[in-house]
């Protein structure tokens, strides 16, 4: 378990994240079938396949570059609401890593937190509206709070908070995105984008554990 990840390691981590998201395509699709249009899984797969393609055979100069290029790939290939918000998380979040040669728990927390703020701004939404923000915002907060405990511990806490946030979306009424018009009928279902956040942070945590 390392506490610092250099550019190569961040690239390896993002490849692990991509494989994990892609492996869960069907679960994401099913979640979106329940309250949206059923394309979240294939959209995220397109985006993270593009991330894999971008990162393989490429020597990144910095963690910031890895996250920025990942964001660009997601934004250009995912499409839909997810392309814009997940692309924004990585592209805008990467600015928090400017000038750092390695990521540690603190900078990762900053990355998540800034990414979350940028996504909220982009979509004009706030936590509580049954979106990926409901998993990302508590995850970012937990990562920052547990930064002193090291990278793995911070990500583990972030993941637990994301999952907790995901579960809370079940009780929420969607007021943005395609689920919005479901109104009360969206109650009882998790938000697909929030599930994606859980998967992403889970893969980051597992990567940190085995590195």
């Amino acid at each position, binding site marked *: 378990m390392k506490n610092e990840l250099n550019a190569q390691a961040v690239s390896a981590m993002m490849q692990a994240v991509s494989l994990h998201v892609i492996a869960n395509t069907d679960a994401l699709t099913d979640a979106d079938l329940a309250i949206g*249009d059923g394309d979240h899984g294939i959209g995220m797969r397109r985006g993270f396949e593009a991330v894999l393609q971008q990162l393989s055979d490429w020597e990144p100069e910095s963690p910031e570059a890895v996250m920025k290029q990942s964001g660009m790939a997601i934004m250009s290939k995912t499409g839909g609401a*997810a392309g*814009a918000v997940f692309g924004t998380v990585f592209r805008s979040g990467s600015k928090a890593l400017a000038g750092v040669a390695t990521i540690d728990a603190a900078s990762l927390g900053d990355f998540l937190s800034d990414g979350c703020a940028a996504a909220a701004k982009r979509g004009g939404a706030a936590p509580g509206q049954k979106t990926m923000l409901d998993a990302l915002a508590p995850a970012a907060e937990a990562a920052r709070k547990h930064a002193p405990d090291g990278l793995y511990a911070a990500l583990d806490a972030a993941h637990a908070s994301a999952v907790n946030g995901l579960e809370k979306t079940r009780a929420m009424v969607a007021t943005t995105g395609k689920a919005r018009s479901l109104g009360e009928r969206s109650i009882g279902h998790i938000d697909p984008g929030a599930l994606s956040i859980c998967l992403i942070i889970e893969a980051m945590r597992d990567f940190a554990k085995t590195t």
Partner: protein
Amino acid sequence: MAAKKILNDPRNVVSEMIEGLVLANDGRVRKLDGVDAIVRTDLPAGKVALLIGGGSGHEPVFHGFVGANMADGAACGQVFAAPSPEIVYEAAKAVHRGNGIVFLYGNYAGDNMNFDIASEMLEDDGIDVRTIRVRDDVAAAPPERMDDRRGVAGDLYMIKIVGGAATELTDIDEVERVARKAEAAIRSIGVAVSPGSIPETGKLTFELGEDEIEVGMGAHGEAGVSRQKLAPADDVADQLADALLRDLPFHGGDEVALLINNLGATTMMEMLIVNRRIRQILADRNISVHRSDVGTYLTVQEMAGFSITLMKLDAELKHFLDLPCDSFGFKQP
């Protein structure tokens, strides 16, 4: 139950569809190299550009409506997914003729965000971009929350009017004025009878009981105002007309355009029978129909169902709506 379609690799549906669409346009549109966007081949210099777009799978909306007096180009997303900012940006650059660009698309979170990002990129390039979001679906939200309303089959009339305005008017402010007036005057509502599916997943986007319909269903299977028992056509027409007429509201003496749109698998016979009833209702209220269009304009793959659109017209809107056009999906002599 999985959908049954005649396709090649379902991951390639959008690129193959664009290829087939360009060929079906017999030279009047071209695809951008490496980008899922199509643009007119005969774009006049200096015109205000009109770029439309959205997720694929709703053919002929949007990419079937590119042509003279309609849109100059369309940015095509994957099935039911807004196009990425990159696609919108490249399409915008290709249609821009130095006189600004109007973006016209349906009001969905995904489209709004992706087009907005592209618009910011274009503004960085010094290009004037105006954004019009179609919000005609009265089922999505009450009138107080217009911003929560989705864009549905009203897209056609909006593209037709804004396309005409962007051809004849040289000032983008004027084009925007016409577009906003049109957007405020249009209302739609639909009813779904059976679901559609996304080719890549093959899964039906919702389920309905054998004798159930959903009034107000959205263009991707988003829930509507009510799930109810299958009813006679006249009753369904009455219910839909009622929702539309009190929304704007429409009044006796109004002149309107009436659009009855097939969401995919509904028979023309059903739509004509509904048309009959809607015309009776409008006649009873002394609302006169300036023009009517009954056909297939915005589909949701093989969804069965239809939508009704009413647009209140004035002389200017009538003029632009009635201009001739010859796009793949809408032709007007």
